[in-house]
Protein backbone atom coordinates (compact mmCIF):
# COMPACT_ATOMS: atom_id res chain seq x y z
CA UNK A 1 0.00 0.00 0.00
CA UNK A 2 1.42 3.39 -0.84
CA UNK A 3 1.84 6.14 1.71
CA UNK A 4 -1.03 8.31 0.49
CA UNK A 5 -3.43 5.38 0.88
CA UNK A 6 -2.17 4.72 4.40
CA UNK A 7 -2.64 8.40 5.28
CA UNK A 8 -6.19 8.24 3.92
CA UNK A 9 -6.88 5.37 6.33
CA UNK A 10 -5.73 7.56 9.22
CA UNK A 11 -8.05 10.33 8.07
CA UNK A 12 -10.92 7.85 7.83
CA UNK A 13 -10.05 6.74 11.43
CA UNK A 14 -9.71 3.22 10.09
CA UNK A 15 -7.60 1.14 12.50
CA UNK A 16 -6.03 -0.84 9.67
CA UNK A 17 -3.95 2.33 9.18
CA UNK A 18 -1.75 1.17 12.06
CA UNK A 19 -1.57 -2.36 10.70
CA UNK A 20 -0.48 -1.11 7.28
CA UNK A 21 1.99 1.32 8.82
CA UNK A 22 3.42 -1.51 10.89
CA UNK A 23 3.78 -3.77 7.86
CA UNK A 24 5.63 -1.14 5.90
CA UNK A 25 7.60 0.79 8.52
CA UNK A 26 8.09 -1.40 11.61
CA UNK A 27 11.60 -2.48 10.62
CA UNK A 28 12.55 1.05 9.61
CA UNK A 29 11.40 2.55 12.92
CA UNK A 30 12.82 -0.30 14.99
CA UNK A 31 16.26 0.27 13.52
CA UNK A 32 16.09 3.97 14.38
CA UNK A 33 14.90 3.27 17.93
CA UNK A 34 17.47 0.53 18.41
CA UNK A 35 20.30 2.84 17.37
CA UNK A 36 19.28 5.15 20.23
CA UNK A 37 18.21 2.63 22.87
CA UNK A 38 20.36 -0.40 22.03
CA UNK A 39 17.77 -2.80 23.31
CA UNK A 40 15.26 -4.84 21.35
CA UNK A 41 12.40 -4.80 23.84
CA UNK A 42 12.67 -1.09 24.52
CA UNK A 43 12.86 -0.40 20.80
CA UNK A 44 9.73 -2.44 20.18
CA UNK A 45 7.92 -0.48 22.87
CA UNK A 46 9.16 2.76 21.37
CA UNK A 47 7.94 1.77 17.90
CA UNK A 48 4.51 0.83 19.27
CA UNK A 49 4.35 4.27 20.90
CA UNK A 50 5.34 5.77 17.55
CA UNK A 51 2.38 4.16 15.81
CA UNK A 52 0.10 5.34 18.57
CA UNK A 53 1.61 8.83 18.17
CA UNK A 54 0.92 8.73 14.44
CA UNK A 55 -2.69 7.72 15.13
CA UNK A 56 -3.09 10.68 17.46
CA UNK A 57 -1.49 13.27 15.19
CA UNK A 58 -2.88 12.30 11.74
CA UNK A 59 -5.20 14.13 11.35
CA UNK A 60 -4.81 17.07 11.77
CA UNK A 61 -1.27 16.61 10.40
CA UNK A 62 -0.73 15.41 6.86
CA UNK A 63 2.84 14.14 6.60
CA UNK A 64 4.58 15.05 3.36
CA UNK A 65 6.86 12.03 3.81
CA UNK A 66 5.41 9.28 5.97
CA UNK A 67 8.78 7.58 6.48
CA UNK A 68 10.57 10.62 7.90
CA UNK A 69 7.45 11.63 9.82
CA UNK A 70 7.37 8.25 11.60
CA UNK A 71 11.15 8.26 11.96
CA UNK A 72 10.99 11.67 13.64
CA UNK A 73 8.35 10.52 16.13
CA UNK A 74 10.47 7.43 16.85
CA UNK A 75 13.58 9.56 17.43
CA UNK A 76 11.73 11.89 19.80
CA UNK A 77 10.18 9.09 21.83
CA UNK A 78 13.47 7.20 21.98
CA UNK A 79 15.30 10.37 23.01
CA UNK A 80 12.85 10.96 25.84
CA UNK A 81 13.31 7.41 27.04
CA UNK A 82 17.04 7.69 26.73
CA UNK A 83 17.51 9.46 30.08
CA UNK A 84 15.73 6.67 31.87
CA UNK A 85 17.84 4.04 30.14
CA UNK A 86 20.97 6.03 30.90
CA UNK A 87 20.29 5.30 34.55
CA UNK A 88 20.52 1.63 33.63
CA UNK A 89 23.80 2.37 31.89
CA UNK A 90 22.48 1.12 28.60
CA UNK A 91 23.52 3.29 25.74
CA UNK A 92 26.99 4.05 25.07
CA UNK A 93 27.32 4.80 21.34
CA UNK A 94 24.35 7.13 21.27
CA UNK A 95 25.92 9.32 23.96
CA UNK A 96 28.94 9.70 21.71
CA UNK A 97 26.62 10.95 18.96
CA UNK A 98 25.14 13.56 21.29
CA UNK A 99 28.61 14.58 22.48
CA UNK A 100 29.71 15.09 18.90
CA UNK A 101 26.87 17.54 18.36
CA UNK A 102 28.42 19.80 21.02
CA UNK A 103 30.81 20.84 18.24
CA UNK A 104 27.95 22.77 16.66
CA UNK A 105 27.08 24.58 19.89
CA UNK A 106 28.77 27.61 21.40
CA UNK A 107 28.44 26.06 24.85
CA UNK A 108 27.09 22.67 25.93
CA UNK A 109 23.88 24.19 27.27
CA UNK A 110 23.19 27.68 26.03
CA UNK A 111 19.87 28.53 27.64
CA UNK A 112 19.66 31.82 25.77
CA UNK A 113 19.52 30.17 22.39
CA UNK A 114 15.87 29.19 22.14
CA UNK A 115 14.89 29.11 18.50
CA UNK A 116 12.05 27.55 16.62
CA UNK A 117 13.06 23.98 15.79
CA UNK A 118 11.54 24.02 12.34
CA UNK A 119 13.18 27.31 11.48
CA UNK A 120 16.68 26.05 12.31
CA UNK A 121 15.91 22.75 10.64
CA UNK A 122 15.17 24.63 7.43
CA UNK A 123 18.58 26.29 7.63
CA UNK A 124 20.21 22.93 8.30
CA UNK A 125 18.41 21.52 5.23
CA UNK A 126 19.71 24.40 3.14
CA UNK A 127 23.21 23.80 4.45
CA UNK A 128 22.97 20.09 3.64
CA UNK A 129 21.84 20.85 0.10
CA UNK A 130 24.96 22.94 -0.43
CA UNK A 131 27.51 20.33 0.63
CA UNK A 132 28.86 17.22 -1.12
CA UNK A 133 26.16 14.55 -1.45
CA UNK A 134 28.18 11.83 0.25
CA UNK A 135 28.98 14.14 3.17
CA UNK A 136 25.31 15.03 3.44
CA UNK A 137 24.28 11.39 3.57
CA UNK A 138 27.02 10.54 6.06
CA UNK A 139 25.86 13.42 8.28
CA UNK A 140 22.23 12.26 8.13
CA UNK A 141 23.14 8.62 8.75
CA UNK A 142 24.95 9.70 11.90
CA UNK A 143 22.70 12.45 13.29
CA UNK A 144 19.30 11.50 11.90
CA UNK A 145 19.50 7.69 11.88
CA UNK A 146 22.08 7.50 14.71
CA UNK A 147 24.15 4.90 12.86
CA UNK A 148 27.40 3.72 14.39
CA UNK A 149 30.68 4.81 12.80
CA UNK A 150 31.33 1.21 11.77
CA UNK A 151 27.98 0.98 9.98
CA UNK A 152 28.54 4.25 8.15
CA UNK A 153 32.08 3.28 7.18
CA UNK A 154 30.78 0.01 5.75
CA UNK A 155 27.85 1.62 3.97
CA UNK A 156 30.03 4.19 2.22
CA UNK A 157 33.08 1.99 1.74
CA UNK A 158 35.40 4.26 3.70
CA UNK A 159 37.45 3.80 6.85
CA UNK A 160 36.13 4.74 10.28
CA UNK A 161 38.77 7.46 10.60
CA UNK A 162 37.66 8.94 7.28
CA UNK A 163 34.05 8.82 8.54
CA UNK A 164 35.08 10.63 11.73
CA UNK A 165 36.94 13.27 9.81
CA UNK A 166 34.04 13.90 7.36
CA UNK A 167 31.67 14.24 10.30
CA UNK A 168 33.98 16.54 12.21
CA UNK A 169 34.46 18.87 9.23
CA UNK A 170 30.73 18.87 8.44
CA UNK A 171 29.85 19.74 12.06
CA UNK A 172 32.28 22.64 12.03
CA UNK A 173 30.97 23.89 8.66
CA UNK A 174 27.42 23.64 9.98
CA UNK A 175 28.25 25.68 13.04
CA UNK A 176 29.77 28.42 10.86
CA UNK A 177 26.83 28.32 8.46
CA UNK A 178 24.30 28.66 11.27
CA UNK A 179 26.26 31.55 12.76
CA UNK A 180 26.15 33.32 9.40
CA UNK A 181 22.41 32.69 9.35
CA UNK A 182 22.18 34.44 12.70
CA UNK A 183 21.92 31.43 14.98
CA UNK A 184 24.29 31.13 17.90
CA UNK A 185 23.39 27.80 19.38
Amino acid sequence: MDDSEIIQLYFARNETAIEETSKKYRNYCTKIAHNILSNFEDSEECVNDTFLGAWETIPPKTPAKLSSFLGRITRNIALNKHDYYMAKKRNKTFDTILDELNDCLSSPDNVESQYEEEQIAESISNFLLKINEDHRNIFLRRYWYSDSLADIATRFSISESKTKSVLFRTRKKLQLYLMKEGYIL
Partner: protein
Amino acid sequence: MNNKDLFKTIGYVDGNLVEKANTARRTNKRTYAKWGTMAACAALVLGVAIYTSPLKTSLTNSPQISQQTPVSAPTGVRKILNYNGFRYAFVSDGAQFKFTGMKPEKSLGTIDFDINQEIGKNNGGEVVEKDFSSTFAVGGKLYEIPTYPSQFRIAVKVEEHYYLAEIVAKTNDSTMAAKEYLDMSNLKEHAKDIHVLNHVGNDVLKKMTDHASVESIIDGLYSAKTADLSNKEYEAIAEAQSQGKSYQLKFNLKDGTYMGMYIIPELKVVSMGDAYYHLPDTFFKQSGDLFSGLKQEVLPLY
Protein backbone atom coordinates in the same frame (compact mmCIF):
# COMPACT_ATOMS: atom_id res chain seq x y z
CA MET B 1 20.12 24.86 23.20
CA ASN B 2 21.90 21.67 24.21
CA ASN B 3 23.00 18.69 22.15
CA LYS B 4 19.68 16.87 22.67
CA ASP B 5 17.74 19.91 21.44
CA LEU B 6 19.97 20.01 18.38
CA PHE B 7 19.50 16.28 17.80
CA LYS B 8 15.74 16.82 17.97
CA THR B 9 15.96 19.80 15.65
CA ILE B 10 17.86 17.75 13.07
CA GLY B 11 14.79 15.50 13.09
CA TYR B 12 12.91 18.26 11.27
CA VAL B 13 15.23 18.54 8.26
CA ASP B 14 13.78 18.05 4.79
CA GLY B 15 12.14 14.61 4.55
CA ASN B 16 13.38 14.18 0.98
CA LEU B 17 17.00 14.38 2.14
CA VAL B 18 16.27 11.95 4.96
CA GLU B 19 14.67 9.51 2.57
CA LYS B 20 17.61 9.72 0.17
CA ALA B 21 20.04 9.08 3.03
CA ASN B 22 18.03 6.00 3.93
CA THR B 23 18.90 4.32 0.67
CA ALA B 24 22.31 5.96 0.17
CA ARG B 25 25.00 3.38 -0.23
CA ARG B 26 28.69 3.31 -0.84
CA THR B 27 29.71 4.67 -4.19
CA ASN B 28 32.10 1.76 -4.85
CA LYS B 29 29.44 -0.54 -6.22
CA ARG B 30 31.79 -3.34 -7.18
CA THR B 31 33.00 -3.88 -3.63
CA TYR B 32 29.48 -3.63 -2.34
CA ALA B 33 28.27 -6.21 -4.82
CA LYS B 34 31.04 -8.54 -3.73
CA TRP B 35 30.18 -8.25 -0.04
CA GLY B 36 26.49 -8.39 -0.82
CA THR B 37 26.91 -11.58 -2.80
CA MET B 38 29.07 -13.09 -0.07
CA ALA B 39 26.55 -12.20 2.60
CA ALA B 40 23.72 -13.62 0.50
CA CYS B 41 25.70 -16.81 -0.08
CA ALA B 42 26.43 -17.02 3.64
CA ALA B 43 22.75 -16.73 4.46
CA LEU B 44 21.87 -19.30 1.84
CA VAL B 45 24.54 -21.74 2.98
CA LEU B 46 23.42 -21.40 6.58
CA GLY B 47 19.79 -21.86 5.62
CA VAL B 48 20.48 -24.83 3.40
CA ALA B 49 22.84 -26.37 5.96
CA ILE B 50 20.17 -26.30 8.63
CA TYR B 51 17.53 -27.33 6.12
CA THR B 52 19.41 -30.41 4.95
CA SER B 53 21.22 -31.49 8.09
CA PRO B 54 18.30 -33.50 9.53
CA LEU B 55 18.53 -35.85 6.56
CA LYS B 56 21.99 -36.85 7.67
CA THR B 57 20.98 -37.44 11.25
CA SER B 58 17.66 -39.11 10.60
CA LEU B 59 19.31 -42.52 10.67
CA THR B 60 19.98 -42.26 14.39
CA ASN B 61 17.48 -43.65 16.86
CA SER B 62 17.15 -40.62 19.09
CA PRO B 63 14.10 -38.40 18.59
CA GLN B 64 14.71 -35.82 15.91
CA ILE B 65 13.52 -32.30 15.31
CA SER B 66 14.06 -31.40 11.68
CA GLN B 67 13.66 -28.06 10.06
CA GLN B 68 11.15 -28.12 7.21
CA THR B 69 11.43 -24.64 5.76
CA PRO B 70 14.50 -22.49 5.18
CA VAL B 71 15.35 -19.54 7.38
CA SER B 72 13.71 -16.41 6.09
CA ALA B 73 15.96 -13.44 5.29
CA PRO B 74 17.54 -12.38 8.60
CA THR B 75 16.68 -8.73 8.12
CA GLY B 76 13.50 -8.19 10.08
CA VAL B 77 12.86 -7.98 13.78
CA ARG B 78 13.05 -11.39 15.39
CA LYS B 79 9.88 -13.17 16.38
CA ILE B 80 9.21 -13.57 20.09
CA LEU B 81 6.63 -14.98 22.48
CA ASN B 82 6.13 -14.79 26.23
CA TYR B 83 5.29 -17.83 28.30
CA ASN B 84 5.63 -18.65 31.98
CA GLY B 85 7.63 -15.51 32.72
CA PHE B 86 10.17 -16.23 30.01
CA ARG B 87 10.76 -14.58 26.68
CA TYR B 88 11.21 -17.07 23.86
CA ALA B 89 12.60 -16.38 20.41
CA PHE B 90 11.39 -18.45 17.48
CA VAL B 91 14.18 -20.74 16.30
CA SER B 92 15.46 -20.02 12.77
CA ASP B 93 13.24 -16.96 12.58
CA GLY B 94 10.01 -18.94 12.65
CA ALA B 95 10.89 -21.83 10.36
CA GLN B 96 8.68 -24.94 10.52
CA PHE B 97 9.94 -28.10 12.21
CA LYS B 98 8.95 -31.73 12.14
CA PHE B 99 9.18 -34.11 15.10
CA THR B 100 10.27 -37.68 14.50
CA GLY B 101 10.31 -40.34 17.19
CA MET B 102 8.39 -38.15 19.62
CA LYS B 103 5.32 -35.96 19.59
CA PRO B 104 4.64 -32.82 21.55
CA GLU B 105 1.40 -33.77 23.31
CA LYS B 106 1.29 -31.93 26.63
CA SER B 107 -0.64 -28.75 25.90
CA LEU B 108 0.56 -25.58 27.64
CA GLY B 109 -2.08 -23.16 26.37
CA THR B 110 -2.82 -20.90 23.45
CA ILE B 111 -1.16 -17.70 22.28
CA ASP B 112 -4.01 -15.31 22.93
CA PHE B 113 -2.37 -11.93 22.57
CA ASP B 114 -0.83 -10.40 19.51
CA ILE B 115 1.78 -7.91 20.65
CA ASN B 116 1.54 -6.11 17.29
CA GLN B 117 -2.24 -5.81 17.47
CA GLU B 118 -2.24 -4.42 21.00
CA ILE B 119 -0.72 -1.19 19.74
CA GLY B 120 -2.94 1.71 20.52
CA LYS B 121 -4.79 0.02 23.33
CA ASN B 122 -4.38 1.34 26.86
CA ASN B 123 -2.74 -1.81 28.11
CA GLY B 124 -0.47 -2.19 25.08
CA GLY B 125 2.66 -1.78 27.19
CA GLU B 126 1.61 -4.54 29.58
CA VAL B 127 0.96 -7.04 26.81
CA VAL B 128 4.59 -6.88 25.74
CA GLU B 129 5.45 -8.73 28.96
CA LYS B 130 2.28 -10.78 29.33
CA ASP B 131 2.30 -14.58 29.15
CA PHE B 132 0.76 -16.09 26.01
CA SER B 133 1.55 -12.99 23.97
CA SER B 134 3.53 -13.16 20.76
CA THR B 135 4.56 -11.26 17.68
CA PHE B 136 4.12 -14.40 15.57
CA ALA B 137 1.84 -17.44 15.24
CA VAL B 138 -0.93 -15.86 17.32
CA GLY B 139 -3.74 -18.34 17.96
CA GLY B 140 -1.20 -21.15 17.89
CA LYS B 141 -1.15 -23.81 20.63
CA LEU B 142 1.86 -24.26 22.85
CA TYR B 143 3.15 -27.73 23.59
CA GLU B 144 5.86 -29.17 25.78
CA ILE B 145 8.54 -31.04 23.86
CA PRO B 146 9.17 -34.42 25.54
CA THR B 147 12.95 -33.97 25.39
CA TYR B 148 12.67 -30.53 27.03
CA PRO B 149 10.68 -31.10 30.22
CA SER B 150 12.15 -27.85 31.54
CA GLN B 151 10.36 -26.09 28.67
CA PHE B 152 13.59 -24.41 27.61
CA ARG B 153 12.26 -25.09 24.14
CA ILE B 154 8.58 -25.36 23.41
CA ALA B 155 6.63 -26.18 20.27
CA VAL B 156 4.01 -23.89 18.76
CA LYS B 157 1.43 -25.59 16.58
CA VAL B 158 -0.50 -23.62 13.98
CA GLU B 159 -2.83 -25.68 11.81
CA GLU B 160 -0.67 -28.74 11.18
CA HIS B 161 2.68 -27.00 11.34
CA TYR B 162 5.08 -26.86 14.26
CA TYR B 163 7.39 -24.00 15.14
CA LEU B 164 10.10 -24.02 17.79
CA ALA B 165 10.67 -21.34 20.39
CA GLU B 166 13.65 -21.14 22.74
CA ILE B 167 14.19 -19.17 25.96
CA VAL B 168 16.31 -16.06 25.54
CA ALA B 169 15.49 -14.08 28.70
CA LYS B 170 13.00 -13.48 31.47
CA THR B 171 10.14 -11.20 30.51
CA ASN B 172 10.81 -8.89 33.46
CA ASP B 173 14.44 -8.61 32.31
CA SER B 174 15.76 -9.91 35.63
CA THR B 175 19.08 -11.70 35.33
CA MET B 176 19.34 -15.35 34.52
CA ALA B 177 22.39 -17.05 35.98
CA ALA B 178 24.48 -19.15 33.61
CA LYS B 179 23.64 -22.23 35.68
CA GLU B 180 19.91 -21.61 35.33
CA TYR B 181 20.19 -21.19 31.55
CA LEU B 182 22.43 -24.23 31.11
CA ASP B 183 20.36 -26.42 33.42
CA MET B 184 17.13 -25.50 31.66
CA SER B 185 18.63 -26.17 28.24
CA ASN B 186 20.14 -29.42 29.54
CA LEU B 187 22.94 -28.69 27.11
CA LYS B 188 25.31 -31.20 28.67
CA GLU B 189 22.88 -34.00 27.95
CA HIS B 190 21.80 -32.81 24.50
CA ALA B 191 25.13 -31.70 22.97
CA LYS B 192 26.84 -33.96 20.49
CA ASP B 193 29.73 -31.80 19.32
CA ILE B 194 30.87 -28.20 19.18
CA HIS B 195 31.74 -26.08 16.17
CA VAL B 196 33.43 -22.70 16.36
CA LEU B 197 32.33 -20.52 13.45
CA ASN B 198 32.96 -16.99 12.31
CA HIS B 199 30.52 -14.39 13.66
CA VAL B 200 28.05 -14.63 10.77
CA GLY B 201 28.15 -18.41 11.03
CA ASN B 202 29.01 -19.42 7.47
CA ASP B 203 32.51 -20.76 8.08
CA VAL B 204 33.38 -23.56 10.49
CA LEU B 205 36.80 -22.74 11.91
CA LYS B 206 37.23 -25.52 14.46
CA LYS B 207 35.41 -28.64 15.54
CA MET B 208 35.37 -30.45 18.86
CA THR B 209 33.87 -33.91 18.64
CA ASP B 210 35.48 -35.68 21.61
CA HIS B 211 32.68 -36.23 24.12
CA ALA B 212 34.80 -35.59 27.23
CA SER B 213 36.12 -32.33 25.81
CA VAL B 214 32.61 -31.20 24.85
CA GLU B 215 31.43 -31.91 28.38
CA SER B 216 34.38 -30.05 29.82
CA ILE B 217 33.56 -26.95 27.75
CA ILE B 218 29.95 -27.03 28.93
CA ASP B 219 31.10 -27.53 32.53
CA GLY B 220 33.32 -24.51 32.05
CA LEU B 221 30.34 -22.41 30.95
CA TYR B 222 28.77 -23.03 34.35
CA SER B 223 31.55 -20.88 35.83
CA ALA B 224 30.42 -17.87 33.71
CA LYS B 225 29.23 -14.95 35.80
CA THR B 226 26.39 -12.66 34.82
CA ALA B 227 27.99 -9.55 33.34
CA ASP B 228 26.71 -6.16 34.44
CA LEU B 229 28.42 -4.48 31.55
CA SER B 230 29.66 -0.91 31.69
CA ASN B 231 29.32 1.44 28.75
CA LYS B 232 32.96 0.84 27.91
CA GLU B 233 32.48 -2.91 27.92
CA TYR B 234 29.47 -2.61 25.60
CA GLU B 235 31.57 -0.48 23.28
CA ALA B 236 34.37 -3.03 23.45
CA ILE B 237 31.94 -5.83 22.51
CA ALA B 238 30.58 -3.83 19.58
CA GLU B 239 34.11 -3.06 18.47
CA ALA B 240 35.21 -6.68 18.82
CA GLN B 241 32.23 -7.74 16.69
CA SER B 242 33.05 -5.26 13.98
CA GLN B 243 36.73 -6.25 14.05
CA GLY B 244 36.08 -9.94 13.62
CA LYS B 245 36.92 -10.99 17.18
CA SER B 246 33.52 -12.44 17.96
CA TYR B 247 32.81 -16.08 17.11
CA GLN B 248 29.78 -18.32 17.05
CA LEU B 249 29.86 -21.28 19.38
CA LYS B 250 27.52 -23.84 17.88
CA PHE B 251 26.45 -26.82 19.95
CA ASN B 252 25.12 -29.47 17.59
CA LEU B 253 22.48 -31.41 19.46
CA LYS B 254 21.56 -35.07 19.27
CA ASP B 255 18.07 -34.20 18.03
CA GLY B 256 19.47 -32.67 14.83
CA THR B 257 19.09 -29.02 15.86
CA TYR B 258 21.69 -26.78 17.43
CA MET B 259 22.07 -24.13 20.10
CA GLY B 260 24.15 -21.08 19.40
CA MET B 261 26.15 -18.68 21.57
CA TYR B 262 28.56 -15.88 20.73
CA ILE B 263 31.98 -15.79 22.34
CA ILE B 264 34.67 -13.09 22.33
CA PRO B 265 37.79 -14.79 23.71
CA GLU B 266 39.74 -11.53 23.84
CA LEU B 267 37.17 -9.96 26.17
CA LYS B 268 36.36 -13.26 27.92
CA VAL B 269 32.65 -12.84 27.39
CA VAL B 270 30.03 -15.26 26.11
CA SER B 271 26.38 -14.76 25.27
CA MET B 272 23.66 -17.15 26.36
CA GLY B 273 20.21 -16.15 25.19
CA ASP B 274 20.07 -12.36 25.29
CA ALA B 275 22.56 -11.93 28.13
CA TYR B 276 26.33 -11.64 28.28
CA TYR B 277 28.45 -13.49 30.82
CA HIS B 278 32.06 -13.13 31.95
CA LEU B 279 34.20 -16.24 31.64
CA PRO B 280 37.04 -16.92 34.07
CA ASP B 281 40.62 -17.50 32.85
CA THR B 282 40.31 -21.14 33.84
CA PHE B 283 37.65 -21.65 31.17
CA PHE B 284 40.12 -20.77 28.44
CA LYS B 285 42.90 -22.82 30.04
CA GLN B 286 40.63 -25.86 30.12
CA SER B 287 39.38 -25.37 26.58
CA GLY B 288 42.71 -26.37 25.07
CA ASP B 289 43.37 -24.78 21.71
CA LEU B 290 39.68 -24.43 20.76
CA PHE B 291 39.91 -20.66 20.78
CA SER B 292 43.53 -20.16 19.79
CA GLY B 293 44.68 -19.15 16.33
CA LEU B 294 41.17 -18.35 15.14
CA LYS B 295 40.96 -16.06 12.16
CA GLN B 296 37.99 -14.75 10.25
CA GLU B 297 37.43 -12.34 7.42
CA VAL B 298 35.57 -9.32 8.74
CA LEU B 299 32.18 -9.02 7.11
CA PRO B 300 30.34 -5.73 7.24
CA LEU B 301 27.63 -5.61 9.90
CA TYR B 302 24.48 -3.98 8.62
